[in-house]
């Protein structure tokens, strides 16, 4: 009996470990996608005035990325160095070019973002129907693959213009 219990416990542990790696692989990919989104967007120079020439990527709320984003931060976007910021205070998002909205902020992100509309800030999230509720890019899953929806209108309001190739790859456009 106890032997079965031990086996069960071990299986539990293994399963957990597998789940853990799965999560981190998914977010590694998503982290890479976030950088690639930036690459398929026409950024005007004006967008970098507030950030003194840096490209700011911010994680709002609890970060699911682990260290994946930190690993990518040595790269460059539009020939600009990447600056990472993890925060839960909406006022600190002013200088961000990409804001990943964590699921932990699902309940109150709409109000916060609508109350402080900002130009050249791309919002990305895993939150369901994010693109329909004022967000711009929403990660979804299609047949075990990571895809995304884009709210083009909302993006245009914030001065964000996508390259057509990105739109072709998107699952849904609004």
């Amino acid at each position, binding site marked *: 009996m106890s032997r079965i219990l031990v086996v069960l416990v071990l299986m539990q542990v293994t399963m957990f470990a597998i789940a853990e790696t799965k999560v981190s692989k998914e977010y590694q990919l998503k982290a890479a*996608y976030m950088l690639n989104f930036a*690459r*398929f967007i026409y950024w005007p120079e004006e967008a970098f005035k507030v950030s003194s020439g840096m490209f700011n990527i911010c994680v709002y709320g609890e970060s699911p990325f682990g260290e994946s984003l930190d690993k990518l931060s040595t790269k460059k976007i539009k020939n600009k160095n990447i600056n990472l910021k993890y925060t839960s205070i909406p006022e600190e998002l002013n200088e961000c070019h990409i804001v990943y909205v964590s699921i932990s902020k699902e309940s109150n992100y709409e109000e916060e973002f609508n109350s402080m509309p900002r130009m050249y800030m791309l919002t990305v999230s895993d939150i369901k129907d994010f693109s329909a509720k004022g967000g711009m890019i929403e990660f979804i899953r299609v047949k075990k693959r*990571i*895809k*995304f929806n884009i709210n083009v209108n909302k993006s245009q309001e914030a001065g964000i213009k996508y390259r057509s*190739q990105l739109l072709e790859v998107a699952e849904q456009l609004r």
Partner: protein
Amino acid sequence: MFRKLSIKSKLLTVYIVITGLVLGTAFVIIMSININSSKTNIISGLKVVGEIVADRCAAPLAFSDVESANSNLRALSSHSSIVYACIRTTENEQFSEYNLDVEEVFQCDDYNVEVPLKINNYLIDIYSPIYLEGQPIGVLQIKARLNELTERTVKSIKISMLVFVGLMVVSVVVSRRVMDLIIEPITKLKDVAQNVTSNQDYSLRANESSNDEIGVLVGSFNNMLDQIQERDNSLLKEKEKAEISAESARQYASETEKINLELEIEIRERSRIEDELSDLNETLEDKVVERTAELKELNEKIGDVARSAGMAEVASGVLHNVGNVLNSVNVSASLIREQVRKSKVENLSRVVRMLDEHRDDVPGFIGSDEKGKQIPKFLSLLSDQLGAEKKLMYKELDDLSKSIDHIKNVISMQQSYAGSVGVREKTSLSDLVEDALKINLQGMQRHGIEVVKEFEKIPMLYLDKHKALQIVINLISNAKNAIKDEGEKDSEKEKIITIIISKESEQVSIEVKDTGIGIEPGDIKHLFEYGFKKRRDGHGYGLHHSAIVANELGGKITVKSEGLGKGASFRLIMPIEGNVEHD
């Protein structure tokens, strides 16, 4: 083979070969350019397609959207030559693949952005990098068949061949027509020429149609025929004439025969006369020989006269000299006589007489008598005078003796030369010259002529001494006279006779050079002629005779003068050969 062809066939062959070569070369060049440019076009077209598709695959690759990538690759099927396409990531993972060929299965090559394309037989691989923000994130490989190129090439070769054949046919047809135009007159001309030769009909004419070279040829041919016909006609006439004249010639011939016979008789007569003439001629030749002999004799006589004249000259030189010496002898003799006449010897006899009177007391007479006291003083004075007289007389007697010796010498010398006529004996040229000078010595001294001798040392020669002497005396005497004559004109002028004895390789020469009156250039060639004389008292055969004598000695006399007043130089030249002493 080619030579046997007609002109037309030759021209046509040449034309076809040249046209074929030109057209063929042109087609080959155009074809190769065409194929090359087709290849370039196909490759650059594939490259452009590759770049476009690679650009469109950037987003699918960035967001791992294999479907989008596949659909992009599928779009390549519109391009008929493309058989395969694939995408590899920078990590060398195959991302997407599309195969259009049903017969063959291809593999995606490893990631590579260094080589833009590979050509393998009929397959070409084009590698287009996929960039995201300037960084390569993968590479698109497109594989295409070059069938299209082959098809295009075959098609263009077919068209070219068709065009080639067509052009050749057209050009041959056209050129045949043109050649007919050119060759027709030649053919006609040939026919006419054949007719003329086979039928001997010179009235035929070729048609003249054009103004080109063939036209000119036809014209000339017709002209030629005109001339031949004309000549033919005139030949016929001439033939007739010739027949007539042949007849008359035959008549003439018989007449000529007659005349010939007469002529033969005449010739015989003439040859008889010629024989007679030839006889006369022979007598004439005999007469000429006779006269020549007479002339020769006469010449010899003249030679003898000249020779005796030469000898006379020597003799007159000798006599002249002897006369001069005799003059000195006379002077010396009168001086001695005068001296003897004036001699103080008589005074001595007076003293002797005085002493004889006082024979008894000589010492007393000398010691006490006034006159006797004077005697020793007187004797001493007398002794001095007599001593002086004796000295003077000795001197005069010496001179006398010398003069007589000289006469003796001259005479014996003359005798020695006179005796040696025609005899060759060992002779020293310098002695010979010295002898000749001796004979002329008095004359030279009288005219104050200086003699310079430049004698080279030469061996003794075997010579007819007398003859040689005659010549040298004559030359020296001439030189002396020339200087004398010049001296009458210009007394200030130097008076030098230079005598040079020298030896050249095969001959010896005695040169007598003077500073005398000189010779006019025009006179030089007459100098040796018989009777030519310039001096009033000359006899005119001195040099003539000398020249003959020199010739007898086997030598010659040459003369040089720069003109009147510039002196002259005569040279007796004798060969060494035959004259030199052989031991």
